[in-house]
């Protein structure tokens, strides 16, 4: 097990080291004393496992490819922003914009996810054990967001083709986001996502939300939504 202690090493040192990895040889890394630092383990592109022991600041695991990153603490804004592939797991809570504009991979948040979770998502899968804040899945284009707790105001505002599954209460739905029926296929998909995230929950307790597709073309009757 390799280890980098941020009490003595810098963020630059950490990222340089992690960028050198190719997945052969040293596959497991621990990062100590993150103390809320920003941009930790960003831009990784190798099938390695990185465990960060503590709380992280903004943009942890930003633009991740292939790597499996675990934060044993909570995370600041922009966790795993623009993730391409791989997995990122936060055992605590995250701040806003979790998985913003993510293209692929899986982001799991055991606790709560705050506002704008999954904003602009483009294919990432996000599973939240707790609740998400307002404007979550704003302009969500593709991918799946699973929320075991509640969702705040304006869920899925201006949503495109992303699919949302929520178990708890939805405070309100955003423009063009509507509830949709759960089919067996959806139950199976949701079950698989929960299993992948290692979160125990019954898919039948969830409801599905998605785009009404009324905003796909500019027309006068949608004026309120602009």
């Amino acid at each position: 097990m390799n280890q980098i202690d941020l009490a003595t090493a810098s963020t630059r040192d950490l990222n340089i080291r992690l960028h050198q990895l190719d997945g052969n040889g040293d596959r497991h890394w621990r990062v100590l004393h993150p103390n809320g630092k920003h941009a930790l383990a960003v831009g990784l592109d190798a099938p390695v496992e990185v465990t960060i022991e503590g709380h992280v600041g903004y943009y942890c695991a930003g633009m991740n490819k292939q790597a499996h990153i675990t934060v044993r603490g909570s995370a600041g804004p922009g966790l795993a922003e623009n993730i391409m592939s791989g997995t990122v797991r936060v055992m605590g809570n995250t701040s806003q914009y979790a998985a913003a504009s993510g293209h692929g991979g899986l982001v799991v948040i055991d606790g709560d996810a705050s506002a704008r979770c999954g904003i602009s998502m483009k294919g990432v899968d996000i599973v939240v054990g707790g609740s998400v804040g307002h404007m979550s899945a704003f302009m969500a284009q593709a991918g799946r967001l699973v929320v075991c707790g509640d969702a705040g105001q304006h869920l899925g505002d201006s949503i495109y083709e992303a699919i949302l599954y929520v178990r708890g209460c939805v405070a309100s739905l955003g423009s063009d986001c509507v509830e949709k029926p759960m089919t067996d296929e959806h139950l199976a998909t949701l079950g698989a996502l929960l299993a992948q995230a290692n979160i125990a929950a019954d898919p039948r307790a969830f409801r599905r939300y998605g785009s009404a597709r009324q905003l796909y073309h500019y027309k006068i009757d949608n004026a309120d939504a602009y």
Partner: protein
Amino acid sequence: MSGNDQLGQTLRGSATFTPAVLDAIYRAADTGIYEIRGFGAKRQLPSFDDLIFLGASMSRYPLEGYRETCETGVTIGARFAKTPIELKVPVTFAGMSFGALGTHAKEALGHAATALGTTTTTGDGGMTDEERNASKTLVYQVLPSRYGLNPDDLRRADAIEIVVGQGAKPGGGGMLLGQKITARVAEMRTLPEGIDQRSACRHPDWTGPDDLEIKIQELREITDWEKPIYVKIGATRTAYDVALCVKSGADAIVLDGMQGGTAATQEVFIEHVGIPTLPAVRLAVEALQELDMHRKVQLIVSGGIRSGADVAKALALGADAVSLGSAALVALGCNKPVFVDDYEQLGTAPGYCHHCHTGRCPVGITTQDPVLEARLHPEQGARWLQNYVTVMVMELQTIARACGKSHVLNLEPEDMVALTIEAAAMAGVPLAGTNWIPGRSGA
């Protein structure tokens, strides 16, 4: 407007309800949706045309053309980056998306930039292989939409440009109408084919210069601090904005004035939001000077740059380089009197066309239709662009030599005077024949 009725008496038009205004109201009443169009601000604005140069005479001496060199090279982004951008000429090509433009236009821009020793910039759809292969030095935009953004393209770019806004629509986001969202464009942007693309106007994961600072650090960490990071702003509260770009850690600032073009946005945005390039440049340079960052954080100016004279004026006011958008497309044939029937079918005519948003560009530039695109041959387009910018640079050098400069960046505000009071106030140079700079001195 005036005319004669049957009695030969003059008809009186209204300056408030002009024909254009009447049309716009009828249009709004008919369709119930705002007018969306391409191109930049069309109305008369104070501009570089209102400034002139004081060439050499008895008190100043000119340089000989051709024999005495007038250098044009500029370095962008040495503040933090390991590999700054070296421009052979202080003229670059502005960010324009694949999606707004077709592939032929992007290829032409790329080949021309390579031949000229300058850069092109990606736009709101992401990076295409064609552009990366055609353009030797490529600037990669990070926009609020984040369409197609990925770390591989970030790393194969030569510089990164974080877009906060553009001159045509400061405070607004990108727009592309359904007719231009083809399969390829849709795939790059992760959108359903044929829909009207809605835009985000704020970045999804940061708000404010204090958070932008952290975002810039993240992008540097991902790219191992190699590449310069530009921040692009539309001209509004320019003095504050430039100071904040510097404080957020930008290596260079791209400032786009009101005349800046777009392939599609609301007409009211284009004509009524943002300040002209002329006052914006002065505000930006003063903000940089106040922070002792002039020439340390470079300023690239765009928005209605058309000739070597415009370039010279922008540099004289303190810019390090300029960027061409609309003018580059004109060099590629925009508004040329060819395929005139097609202009008519769009309801316009050569010289008046701003119909980029329709995707039916008669000259094959702002279209995804392969039949129309075929009208623009990339090699021919590249040759046109290369010729045009070469002429621009020669014009710039001609003016610079006449003012006694051996490097174009040595042009100064004191080399110019203004022809109008507005231009004098906006540019901070005296009204010709006087010492008067309104609001400052010599009254």
